[in-house]
């Protein structure tokens, strides 16, 4: 009888200790976490001022710019038509039902683009032209969310223009060839000849 009692006592003690430690460890871990985040928030101060746009010039096809090299000697023709003699290599599929070249290229000043309200625009600022239709994308692009930025996450960034990635005449991305699929895990086997064996031997 006495032994039975002893057994019970021991067992319940043991359980109690386990439960206690578990409980303690769970609760303590949570406290720690929330403190850590709070501290971080307090500590935050902006360390670097983000520098302004560093944009690459727009990508032109070789020898095509300035446009006035040719267009200066030509009579402007604002009639919508299919181009046959020049620029027939351009596939235009960018709302082509409703728009054509001179909706974006200025008819008089050929080296400029034009906004819908007629305002002229340098080619370097083409993003503003894109932005008049794609407002949301433009907004995202300005803060670096649409498109791509490289460089420093907290400092100098390198921007890409809309036209660096999207061909303005056919903006939809072309399909890409993907990099090779990962090796199947079944095929990962012991390498008999390590790639860096040469340097291994040098070591000795």
């Amino acid at each position, binding site marked *: 009888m006495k*032994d039975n009692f*002893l*057994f019970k006592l*021991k*067992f319940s003690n*043991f*359980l109690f200790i*386990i439960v206690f*430690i*578990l409980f*303690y*460890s769970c609760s303590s*871990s949570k406290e720690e976490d929330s403190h850590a985040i709070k501290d971080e928030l307090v500590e935050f101060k902006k360390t670097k001022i983000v520098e302004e746009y560093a944009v690459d010039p727009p990508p032109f096809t070789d020898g095509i710019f300035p446009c006035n090299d040719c267009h200066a000697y030509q009579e402007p023709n604002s009639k919508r038509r299919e181009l046959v003699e020049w620029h027939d290599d351009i596939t235009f599929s960018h709302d082509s039902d409703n728009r054509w070249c001179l909706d974006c290229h200025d008819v008089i000043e050929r080296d400029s683009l034009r906004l819908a309200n007629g305002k002229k625009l340098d080619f370097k600022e083409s993003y503003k032209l894109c932005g008049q239709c794609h407002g949301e994308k433009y907004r995202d692009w300005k803060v670096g969310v649409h498109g791509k930025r490289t460089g420093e996450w907290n400092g100098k960034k390198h921007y890409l223009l809309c036209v660096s990635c999207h061909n303005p005449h056919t903006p939809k991305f072309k399909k890409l060839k993907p990099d090779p699929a990962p090796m199947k*895990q*079944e095929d*990962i*086997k*012991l390498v008999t000849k390590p790639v860096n064996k040469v340097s291994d031997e040098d070591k000795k």
Partner: protein
Amino acid sequence: MNFNRFLIGSLKIIFQGGKYYFAWLLLLTILTVWGAIGYYDQLTDGLITTNMRDSVSWAFYIGNFTFLVGVAAAAVMLVIPAYIYHWGPIKEIVIFGELLAVCAVIMSIAFVVVDIGHPLRFWHMLPFIGTMNFPYSILAWDFFVLFAYFIINATVVIHLLYSAFNKKEYNKKLVLFLVLASIPMAVGIHTVTAFLFNALPARPFWNSALLAPRFLASAFCSGPAILLILFQLLRKYTKFEIKNEALFTIAELMVYSMFIYLFFTLAEFFKEFYSGTEHILYWKYLLFGIGDNKEIVFYSWASIIMGVIAFLLFLIPKTRKNFVTLNIGAVLIYFSVYIEKGMALIIPGFTPDVLGQIYVYKPSMVEIKTAVMVFSIGFLLFTFLTKLAIAIIFEGYSYENVKLKK
């Protein structure tokens, strides 16, 4: 001085025996060496020689570890019924139960050691010299309880044998305390091992509250199965006396735990299959395979069928009280649980993996060899210790038989 004598005496006993004894030792030694060659390859080339990969990052080794923890736990648990039902030779039951526990714990720790990538860095997870992640990591807990359990059981066994060897009365208070402590510890090591898996929400197959109870229930089938057979052998070849009734009671207790195990599993089945969430995939992989990946189906059904047959053999009084069918049942349940823990528990936890990909795992030759090595060493140890225990307890082998050179 006395302890020296004990050690020398032990060595003497170990290397005395008949033809069959040495044949058995030779067999185990050959298997150990054969297995060690495999483990050597693993040490030199890395775990790439196993078939574990990123998707199935734990497998056969950890399965064996889990199984052996169950054996270690159950072996000691038999002390309770022995005590309650007055089976008589309680001291002997304690000794053999704890011997088995000691060997099982050693083997299970060995399986962890062969599983890790840098065995020499094992000290990193120890307290004081390393940085043990206690109490957060369940693996740290597991190591802690297994080690404590090992110490307790080893102390009891060595103390009992040492006292008997010196023909002295053993320290009753100490032994009683340690034996009583080892019982909740036995529940503890198994529960903690179950929690090792249970603690991972990333693996829905294990993240069920029933995992630990099922663990315990299945362990109480496999552990006693070994002792059931061992006791019969001891009774036949030594002066060990145990009544038939006691053996049948063990079998009866095993039926209860099998029933509890089946019930828990059924509850788990119901929950998974009736609700049919995506968690069902792991059970599907286990029982039916997914697509063409049916490699594990054979194992799971083999385990289920063996388990059910054993259950029926133990359930029907007629077959339970017949030693032929009883032993068949014991062997069947042992292997059923072995497969269940070794393959059916670990592999579906990882298949499909966390990103839904299926990598079909089968143990590689190196894994099998290494496992054979660990088991052979464990059996060798168990053989030696049993031999020693038999000699001291039943054959009155004592310090008088050992002469020390002056």
